[in-house]
């Protein structure tokens, strides 16, 4: 859908990685891959691997899913995580995650794919 070429493979293409982009001109970060910086329009932002560390921004526990493939997983939690690097992403995680939790990513199978899955950092 995003069309432009990815230099680094990430979970959206089946690799165990979270990738974001950093503008070489203005330094803005973006998570949705594009061939340009969404803040200043400069071409070819640098692709970087994220550490997988972050903080939970929002949660919703899906109990009613819409397809047989996803229904097999209910209940599953959808989280928005603010990555340590400064971008926000959607992912899965432990069902007891709450807002403000410090989390770290692994990858888990979901409906025939690999998705980022956050767990609480053990303190």
């Amino acid at each position, binding site marked *: *859908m*995003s069309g432009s070429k990815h230099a680094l493979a990430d979970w*959206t293409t089946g690799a165990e990685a979270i990738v974001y982009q950093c503008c070489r001109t203005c330094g803005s970060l973006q*998570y*949705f*891959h594009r061939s340009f910086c969404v803040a200043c329009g400069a071409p070819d932002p640098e692709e970087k691997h994220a550490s997988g560390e972050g903080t939970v*921004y*929002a*949660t*919703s*526990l*899906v*109990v*009613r*899913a*819409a*397809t047989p*493939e*996803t229904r097999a*997983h209910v*209940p*599953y939690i*959808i*989280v*928005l995580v603010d990555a340590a690097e400064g971008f*926000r*992403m*959607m*992912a*899965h995680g432990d069902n007891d995650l709450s*807002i*403000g939790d410090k989390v770290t990513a692994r990858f888990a199978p*979901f*409906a025939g*794919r690999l*998705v980022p899955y956050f767990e609480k950092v053990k303190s």
Partner: protein
Amino acid sequence: MSFITGVGLTAFGRHEGSSSLDLMSKAAELAISDAGLKRSEIDGILCGYSTVAPHIMLATVFAEHFGIRPAYAHAVQVGGATGLAMTMLAHHLVEAGVVRHVLVVGGENRLTGQSRDASILALAQVGHPDYEVPLGPTIPAYYGLVASRYMHEYGVTEQDLAEFAVLMRAHARTHPGAQFHDPITVADVMASKPVALPLKLLDCCPVSDGGAAFVISRECTGETGVRIAGCAQAHTHQHVTAAPALSELGAEIAIARAKAASGLAISDVCYAGVYDSFTITLAMLLEDLGLAARGEAAARVRSGYFGRDGAMPLNTHGGLLSYGHCGVGGAMAHLVETHLQMTGRAGNRQVRDASIALLHGDGGVLSSHVSMFLERTR
């Protein structure tokens, strides 16, 4: 100047055997007749979309089906904000002198035309195809995310949200066209099946069949004039992952622009029609629009402020939550009800004063916003 000269609304719920075009036609017929016009006098058509029967030229398809050869016609797609976005465009089209009478129409057999799963799946596609949809979110989950954050930041509780469902049901009970008439309590909402927590079944609007239409005209055609006093939009993001902070959402931007366009203030408003796809949507929008202080909308519901006899009657037809939600026509019902209130035709639902009304629609996940002030002119 532009006037809303006619409105039409079908009952929402099950219309077994009716197509989207059937429901659009039924609503259009009602609106044109309400305006006191003949079909041949309609020279512009704006229509929404149907997820059941997608078409790349729906306005043209509708025009042919309905028997109109307009001078101007196309579809508009802004999710839940489509109805008000079409009304805003119609307002500008008639003001610019492009056309004289624009028919704005939406209708869909969303309930009986496809399975509920198909509806939920189709709507989930507003998510990002690479970064969100593979995670299996649903529309309630997108709004569930927003709800969790809003509750966290402003101390809103699930019981607070439940108040909005109870209020919309209380209003729907007095409208024969509403999908739901059984009374509900906060306890019922709390005990309803979990969908995408913190949202439960009764926090969510239903899927409905139905249709709604208006005529927007350059001149008034009836005894009571309802003028579009000013309107504006704001679009801050599409995907919830890319949404700005809660304090920077589009409703606040759209209402500020609409106030400037109309010269009106919230203190002038005496009736409100606000988008309510979920209880959290309504709670947030009321606060973003300034109809309640931050975190205090639920308290205003409890005190009767938004009731039929309150200071700011809200969605007296029952809203999306209880009148129903048939897609584009869903939020158009808010405008139809507002028009009936403003023209003194709301029967047993009639409020004391609806001379100045505020309408607000939201599409996507609080992504696209349209705010609109209506004013009775005589």
